[in-house]
Each structure stands twice: as structure tokens, then as C-alpha cells.
């Protein structure tokens, strides 16, 4: 074997970087190492396209999770670039101390490791451990400012996250119990690739209960209503780079876990169909979050509700199933990750320069800070689903496939989309235009990550490369 296995690199680099970052006191050096490590992880993730390792009892790389891994490493990398500028400002105004930054950078890499491990895990127990690790890392980061609000948010996240993770473990144990009589005792009964081959022989009743627990457990992490209560607080009170990775990545990782178990359920003809459950939870989240968007006073909290809305759409699309809806779900997920993290990059710099996150105290951004302001306008227009940007296309696919298959379901879907659309544009006109208020001070911003994401979203709305379309179509057919 001449080449080093890229799968190992995807996991080892974040761990090594975390260890190094924990030792470095100088934040300038550590923020650069953070960027560098994230970049090498991205390269390793990309090289997975060239070299697929064979699945074993612990790890699996297939056409489905490679999409998630690459997206994860890409957003992880761009966020680390944004984070370098962001934390420099936080240090300047004294919100964070160098000691906390050391902790912050190490935790950033621990979180990336946890998410990558969850994505490559072939063992359902290992996947659970990895998601728990990523969650714990983000809980600690949410509480890092140690203000009243940050502590409350972290506590709420901890309690709800723990309940979710407990349910997920119970579900995992039940899956093992269902597998054990067929596959036999031991490790093999937890290996996903083995489970999917034999799942048709499992006891369907046990599998049904297991899936309910898994959906509730991992669904808490996805931020599905009514289990979403932690999400707005965690987004609003933590450092903005963490809001970006929470929305852009951690929610996807939890969704990935749900999808793996959905595939198991679908392969057992006697078990309940997982689709209707997911459709219901997705629609409830979408409609609920869309209405909640109207009453937001805090800009980061508002975009957190928008994340709940979008996760609702994505879970709805995967719940509908079939080649078209799955394709739309995958595209929506990718576009949402890119757009939402770009929005948080803009919002992070804006709240720093204005010194507030209150929507009522932010007006006329396009006049005071044209680049940031128009970047945010573009991002919000994209996330609201206006043509010709990427999210319009995926939402259009979701709606049209729903109309052709279950027209009644399209009514709440379109209602939710329109309500959310209205709320976002209403708020946008407030903070982007009108009489400028607040500081006009020039801003030290890293524009590259934000505009790189927005450019990708823009291009995807107009032209999807055939290779990407073919890949997504293939993955959509695997998802069933």
C-alpha cells in the first residue's frame, strides 16, 4: 500500500490538530493552524473520491456519506477562515481571553473529529459515540462567553441534547436486540452493512419501536419541532462561527444518522414505513418555524428558526422518498449548509461592528457597510428561496414532486414556505435598507468564505454540473 488511507487522515488530522492547538497559547498561530488543519482535512476528504477503502466492522465510505463528508470538511474549512477574523475582534473587545481561545480552537477540531467519525462509522454504536462527542464539544463552545444567556443556552442544550442522545442509545440497543437472533451475538450485529443485508429477517415490531426512539433521539439533534427548543438559544448565544457549523454541519450529521436507520426500516417489508413519520415531523417543523420567524428580535435567533424551517423541508423531502424527492432533499441540504453558513459569516461581522444582535438596532446596512450588507441581502434572498439561486431550485423540486404524488401534503408545505418567505423578506427590508443607525466604523471582515459560498449557491441555481447531478441521482436511488 503506497498511499496513506484518506479515511484515516480525515480522522487523524483533527485529533492531532486538537492536541497541538491545546498546547499553543498564541492565538494568531493557533487560528492559522486551525485553518491549515481544516484545509488538509478537506483535501483528505476530497481524495476519498479517488480512493475508496473497503468497508470493515467500524468504518464505511460509500456514495452516500462521501457527499456529507466533503460538505462537512468544506464548510468546516471556510468557517475556520471566518473564525480567524472573528475571534481576533472578540479578543480585542475582551469578550474572550487567550486561555479561552486555546480551548476554543482545540474544541473546534474535536468537534470536526466527532462529526467526521459519525459520518464514516459503519458501526451503529460507534456512530452514537461520535455524535455524542460532537455534541459535547458544541455544548462547551456555546457556553464559552459565560454570560447569563450563554450559560442558560448551554444548559438547555445540554439537557435536551442528553435526552436526545439517551433515546438514540436506547434505539440503538433495540436495533441490536432485533439483529441478535438473526446475525448472532457480538460485533457483527451492530455493523450497518451487515444489518442492511439481513434486516428483512428481523422482528418488525422491535424494529418499529427502535426507529421511533432513533427518530426522536437523533431528531432532537436535527432540531425537529417539538424537540427544537435548544436550537435557537444555542445559535444566538454562542460564538458566531459555532452558529455557522451548528446550522451548516451538526444538523446534517444527525440527519445522516436518521437516514441510515430509515434505509434499514425501508429494507424490512413488514416494518412500518418510516416516510409518514418523517413527513409529519418535517411539516410540523416547517410550519411552526415559519410562523415563529415573525416574532424574532434577535438576528441570530431568527436565522436559527430559519434553520429549523429548512431542516423541516429536508426531512419532509427524504420522508416522501423516491428518486426526485430524495434528489431535492440532498440538493436542499447542500444549498442550505452553504447559504446558512454564509449568512452567519455576514451576521457575525455585522453584530461585531454594530455591537448588538437586536434587529431593531440594525438598519440601513447596505449604506453603512455595502459589502457586508449586500452579501447578507444575497444570502437572505437565497435562503428565502428566490430564483435563480440554488434553494429555489431544490424547493421547486420538493413542491412539484409533492404536487404530483400527494397534492394534499403540498398545501401545508407551500403555506409554510410562503409564510417563511414573507417573514424573511420583511425583516430583510428592515435591516438592509432604510435610515442607517448604529456604528459606521469600517469592519475587519473576511469576505472570501461568505462570497465563495454564495457564488456556489448562485451557480448551482443556474447550472448544476452533470457529474454532480449523476452522483446525486445515484445517491437518491440508494436512499430509496
Amino acid at each position, binding site marked *: 500500500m503506497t498511499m496513506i488511507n484518506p479515511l484515516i487522515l480525515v480522522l487523524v488530522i483533527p485529533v492531532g490538530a486538537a492536541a497541538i492547538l491545546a498546547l499553543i497559547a498564541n492565538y494568531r498561530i493557533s487560528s492559522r493552524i486551525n485553518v491549515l488543519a481544516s484545509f488538509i482535512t478537506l483535501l483528505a476528504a476530497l481524495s476519498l473520491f479517488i480512493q475508496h477503502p473497503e468497508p470493515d466492522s467500524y468504518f464505511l465510505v460509500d456514495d452516500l456519506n462521501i457527499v456529507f463528508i466533503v460538505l462537512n470538511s468544506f464548510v468546516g474549512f471556510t468557517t475556520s477562515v471566518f473564525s480567524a477574523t472573528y475571534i481576533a475582534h472578540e479578543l480585542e473587545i475582551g469578550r474572550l481571553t487567550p486561555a479561552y481561545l486555546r480551548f476554543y480552537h482545540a474544541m473546534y477540531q474535536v468537534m470536526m473529529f466527532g462529526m467526521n467519525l459519525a459520518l464514516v462509522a459503519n*458501526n451503529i*454504536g*460507534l456512530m*452514537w*459515540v461520535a455524535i*455524542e462527542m460532537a455534541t*459535547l464539544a458544541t*455544548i*462547551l463552545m456555546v*457556553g464559552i462567553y*459565560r454570560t*447569563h*444567556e450563554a*450559560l*442558560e*443556552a*448551554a*444548559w438547555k442544550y*445540554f*439537557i435536551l441534547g*442528553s*435526552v436526545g*442522545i*439517551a433515546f438514540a*442509545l*436506547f434505539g*440503538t*440497543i*433495540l436495533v*441490536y*436486540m432485533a439483529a*441478535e*437472533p438473526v446475525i*448472532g*451475538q*457480538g*460485533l457483527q*450485529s*451492530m455493523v450497518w452493512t451487515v444489518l442492511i443485508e439481513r434486516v428483512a429477517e428481523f*422482528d418488525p*415490531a*422491535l424494529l*418499529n*419501536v427502535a426507529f421511533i426512539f432513533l427518530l426522536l433521539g437523533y431528531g432532537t439533534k436535527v432540531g425537529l419541532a417539538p424537540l427544537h427548543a435548544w436550537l*435557537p*438559544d444555542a445559535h*444566538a*448565544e454562542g460564538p458566531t462561527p459555532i452558529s455557522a457549523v451548528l446550522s451548516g454541519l451538526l444538523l446534517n450529521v444527525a440527519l445522516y444518522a436518521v437516514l441510515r436507520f430509515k434505509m434499514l426500516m425501508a429494507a424490512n417489508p413488514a416494518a412500518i414505513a418510516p416516510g409518514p413519520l418523517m413527513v409529519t415531523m418535517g411539516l410540523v417543523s416547517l410550519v411552526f418555524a415559519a410562523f415563529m420567524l415573525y416574532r*424574532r*428580535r*434577535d438576528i441570530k*435567533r431568527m436565522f436559527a428558526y430559519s434553520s429549523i424551517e429548512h431542516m423541516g423541508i429536508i426531512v419532509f423531502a427524504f420522508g416522501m422518498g423516491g428518486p426526485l424527492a430524495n434528489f431535492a432533499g440532498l440538493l436542499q441540504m447542500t444549498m442550505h449548509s452553504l447559504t446558512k453558513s454564509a449568512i452567519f459569516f455576514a451576521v457575525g461581522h455585522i453584530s461585531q461592528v454594530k455591537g448588538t444582535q*437586536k434587529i431593531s438596532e440594525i438598519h440601513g446596512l447596505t449604506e453603512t457597510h455595502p459589502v457586508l450588507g449586500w452579501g447578507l441581502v444575497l444570502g437572505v434572498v437565497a435562503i428565502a428561496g428566490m430564483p435563480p439561486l440554488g434553494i429555489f431550485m431544490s424547493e421547486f423540486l420538493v413542491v412539484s414532486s409533492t404536487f404530483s404524488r400527494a397534492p394534499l401534503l403540498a398545501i401545508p408545505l407551500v403555506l409554510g414556505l410562503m409564510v417563511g418567505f414573507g417573514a424573511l423578506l420583511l425583516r430583510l427590508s428592515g435591516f438592509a435598507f432604510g435610515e442607517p443607525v448604529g456604528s459606521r466604523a469600517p469592519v475587519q471582515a473576511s469576505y472570501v468564505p461568505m462570497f465563495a459560498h454564495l457564488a456556489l449557491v448562485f451557480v448551482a441555481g443556474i447550472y448544476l454540473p452533470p457529474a454532480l447531478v449523476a452522483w446525486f441521482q445515484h445517491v437518491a436511488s440508494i436512499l430509496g
Partner: protein
Amino acid sequence: MHGLAFDIAHLLAGGLVLVSLMMLYQDRLPALINVFALHAILLAASVTWQANIQHEPYLYVTAVIALGFKGFVIPIALRRMIVRLGIHREIETVVGIGPTMLAGIALVALAMVVMLRVTAQADPLAREDLAFALSVLLLGLLMMVTRRNAVGQVLGFMSLENGLILAATGAKGMPLVVEISVAFSVLIAFIVIGIFLFRIRERFDTVDIQALDRFRGERP
């Protein structure tokens, strides 16, 4: 399955549910911590017995962790903490004891109905274990929502984890990796909780969650 071996396993797992119910109506923190220690000791006994009848030596490790860590280390640490914080006098519950107990009984009934029905083909011991484990889990959850106090919520969470360990033990031959992870997660949970408690103390001079609620992010 021998009659006596099964009966003892049944007794221990059932006892765990009973102690969970006892935790619900403790209205003083030191008493609650004592009952939690009893919960952990009973769990250790249950896991030890299962290790014995399943001939799975690694389960003894799980039992030792449960006994040492949750039965002694955590209760002692928590007791010191509440004395230092000066909150060892009493705890209030959000809902009254009567309704809480009724809700607890309903949850146990629910767990029995759900688990016994779906596991008809499974091994009888695993079946009982799962039903009891789900009861313990749901009771832990109930305790977390009825307590205002951070320490009470933490204890509720750890009793919930005890239910998970019971379930994992009942699943025959489940790889050790998960059990280590359960112990590990409890450890991490405790560290995190410790950090938060100290930070909360530092900032608010209280661990009453309602005091935190006053600082909700969206108040203008």
C-alpha cells in the same frame, strides 16, 4: 432459563423501577442523593447477577463502574457541592408529588405495554429487562422535567442513564464498546455538569434553574 436465576434478575431490575419511583417524591436534596446512590448500587447488583447468569465476565467491569462511580464517587461529590453552595435544605418540585407519582405510574404502565408487546419472541429475561429499562428511562425523564434545581435535573439524567445500562446488559453479547461508552458518557456528563455548576455559581450565586430563566435571550 432457570426459575430462580430469572426470579432474582427480575427482582433486581424491578427494584430499580421502584427506586426510580422513590426518587420522584424526594423533596430534599440530600435524601435525593442517597436514593440515587441506592439506585446505582441496585443497578450494580443487577448487572453483576446478569454477568453471572449470562457467563459474560466483562459485565462485571460495567457493574464495578456503576458501583464505584455512580454509587459512591458522584453522590459524595454532589453532597459536598450542595453543602458548599448552601442549598442542602430543600428542593421544590414544579408539579405536586401526587400528580408526579400518578404520571410516573402511567409511564411505567406505558413502558410495560409497549415493550412486552413488541418483544414477544425475544428471550424472556431480555424482555423483562427492556421493559424495566424503558420504565427507568421514562421516570428519569419525568424527574428532569419536574425538578427546577440543576442538581435534581442532573440526578434525573443519571438515573436515566442507569436505565440505559440495564437495557444494554439485557441485550446479550452486546459489544463492550457500547458499555464503555455509557460509562464514559456519564463521566463526561459529570465533568460538563461540574463545570456548569461552578460557572452558574460564579455568575448567579444559585443553581436554581428558574433564576436562569429570568435571563432569557429575547427579553428586550
